[in-house]
């Protein structure tokens, strides 16, 4: 079997590549660096809606002088404020920073940190770093997938729970670890992780 043939098979992640025209263009780079709004001059950027969170996004762009290089920083603000990045947000950010929509989309899809689906009400992120992996992380993941009928990276049908996996949370000393709604817990086994997620979901039920 020739290698050429192998390469053809592996094309399933081909979409990730695209010609990087700007990569070698120094002139464009210089323009990007200097293309900013002079201090004191107000830039009117229509917000997509009355939602106050758009102002946070606008503030991040303003802080960086609307430079195209602030794309990732701004997407971070979108992700943090809204929980995900949608088309409206992409258009707003691309507009504000004067980058082509295609580039904003390219960047947002390249980095794992940005998600395009709204998260569930609760999240459970299971660490699958090496230390967690050899100490039972995959087992924990399987337990949750079975118990709550949800695949890793997906949200349950009722929108209550998002099950995520993490590359390494850096809590290797506590392996296997997971993060429940922002709270990190270590040394988990199948039983405990299931109970913890149930507790997360039940706490709401009791309150309502």
């Amino acid at each position, binding site marked *: 079997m020739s290698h050429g043939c192998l390469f053809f098979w592996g094309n399933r992640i081909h979409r990730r590549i695209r010609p990087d025209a700007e*990569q070698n263009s120094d002139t464009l780079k210089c323009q990007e660096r200097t293309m900013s709004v002079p201090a004191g001059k107000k830039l009117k950027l229509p917000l997509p809606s009355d939602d106050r969170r758009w102002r946070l996004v606008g503030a991040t762009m303003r802080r960086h002088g609307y430079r195209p290089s602030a794309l990732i920083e701004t997407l971070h603000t979108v992700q943090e404020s809204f929980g995900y990045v949608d088309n409206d947000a992409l258009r707003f950010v691309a507009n504000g920073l004067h980058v082509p929509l295609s580039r904003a989309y390219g960047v947002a899809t390249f980095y794992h940190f940005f998600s395009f689906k709204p998260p569930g009400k609760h999240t459970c992120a299971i660490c699958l770093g*090496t230390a967690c992996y050899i100490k039972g992380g995959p087992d924990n993941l399987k337990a949750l997938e079975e118990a709550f009928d949800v695949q890793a990276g997906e949200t349950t049908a009722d929108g209550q729970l998002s099950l995520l996996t993490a590359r390494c949370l*850096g809590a290797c000393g506590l392996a296997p670890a997971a993060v429940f709604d922002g709270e990190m817990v270590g040394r988990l086994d199948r039983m405990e992780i299931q109970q913890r997620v149930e507790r997360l979901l039940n706490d709401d039920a009791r309150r309502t």
Partner: protein
Amino acid sequence: MTPEELDEIATIERETTHQFQHRVSVCVGTGCHSAHSEEVKTALEKEVSRQGLENWCQVKGVGCRGLCASGPMVEVDTAARLYQGVTPEDAVEIVETLDTGSVPRLECPTDLPFFTRQTKIVLEHAGRIDPERIEDYIVMGGYTALLKTLTEMTPAEVIEQITTSGLRGRGGGGYPTGLKWRTVAIAAGTQKYIICNGDEGDPGAFMDRSILESDPHRILEGMAIAAYAVGADEGYVYVRAEYPLAIKRLRAAIIQAERNGLLGKNIFGTPFSFHVEIRLGAGAFVCGEETALIASIEGRRGTPRPRPPYPAEFGLWGCPTLINNVETIANIVPIVRNGGAWFAEIGTENSKGTKVFALTGRVNHTGLIEVPMGITLREIVFDIGGGIPDGRKFKAVQTGGPSGGCIPEEYLDMTVDYASLAQVGSIMGSGGMIIMDETSNMVDVARYFMEFCMTESCGKCIPCRVGTVQMHELLCRIAAGQATPHDLELLEELCDLVKQTSLCGLGQSSPNPVLSTLRYFRNEYMDQLAAKPGE
């Protein structure tokens, strides 16, 4: 800030600390933080104020003590008593016994090899200072190295010291730091940049996170010294977004340093100015590669580009750029303070100084350790790490993450330095050290790392993008018992191809876990083949 003012801050802080009879330090690093050390700290503070002892006992949060598995750790007075696994309920007992003795039930022996066998240079302040207070850093002699650099040394002299020290890049490559600095310093251009690479993507490694969380000012001071040496006035710290605590502390540290005139314009009244900004990673392992990292800071997709030109000549926005790893930068301050010759005495002929490792996996004492180069793997695993739990047998130690390899038992007496690790098919890497026992399946380990490389491949060059997918598929087939000897041959052929032809380090080193497990644990692969050779 003038030198006198720096002195004054240190003196005031020293006097304030001396007023207290006792000092209770609670570890607030990520490990202990997840074990709810903040609650322990609050409980201790409450108990101290309930008994009206605020002027007698000081409660403070400190950085990582290293022994993360036993958290939360609490230290009473400096090194007098160390408690492990403390809960908020223990606060009363701890405060009551401050004068009279200790709480034996919580005591953690301080004479463990875990503590005594380490040499702390990078982590010298970790567990001793409050990372959120600049005064704590200044009282330990902080920012005096920067003062010395700016007032007594020329840039060339600083580079000379770094070259003499023999320091090599701690991010994995092991490139001589002094040489890198010199290249940037002599590169043409008036605008130059410094980047501190804190995109610690290796699964199983958390050294940089701990350094940033425990001693953020050390990084800022190191960066400022580097900036002075190479002639830069702007710096970026690129940190993973997955490390919120490190980002928070670093942000606070930058504000404090700016407020005190230790960053910003005309530092210490000299013409030298230096600004630092934080850039967050967004979950792409490939951004640890320097050209990809630069692309990411510029707000683009983090894809690497061919080198040369190296970033030292053509980096951020086309300007000469110095990129150093967090741990490398953390070594700068002690080198400037004590001289390059002092540093060169530690370690081995070709690997100077110490290395921080994140010791994890199937080992008794998991946590963060700093050891001199040249120590043996056996000392790390069995003395410092306390051996393998549950009476199991040691099988392999994995270093270097997805770019490294698995080292079997027969090489346990090998010394840890750049050259010997490379010789046995692994690399020093950024410092993750994962111990595996007899229950670990090496084919599965190789498959795990290949899956990692496959998903993290940026897609720019074909050998990496396609090769990793194919290698992963072959490994899955082997693991599932469906592979033939021919598949194994194909796997080896592909490993060689991807190694030789990939664009950046991610692709070039992605076959390493497979190659090293094939080299030392070939029988495991053979056992899992569907048809044996010759059948």
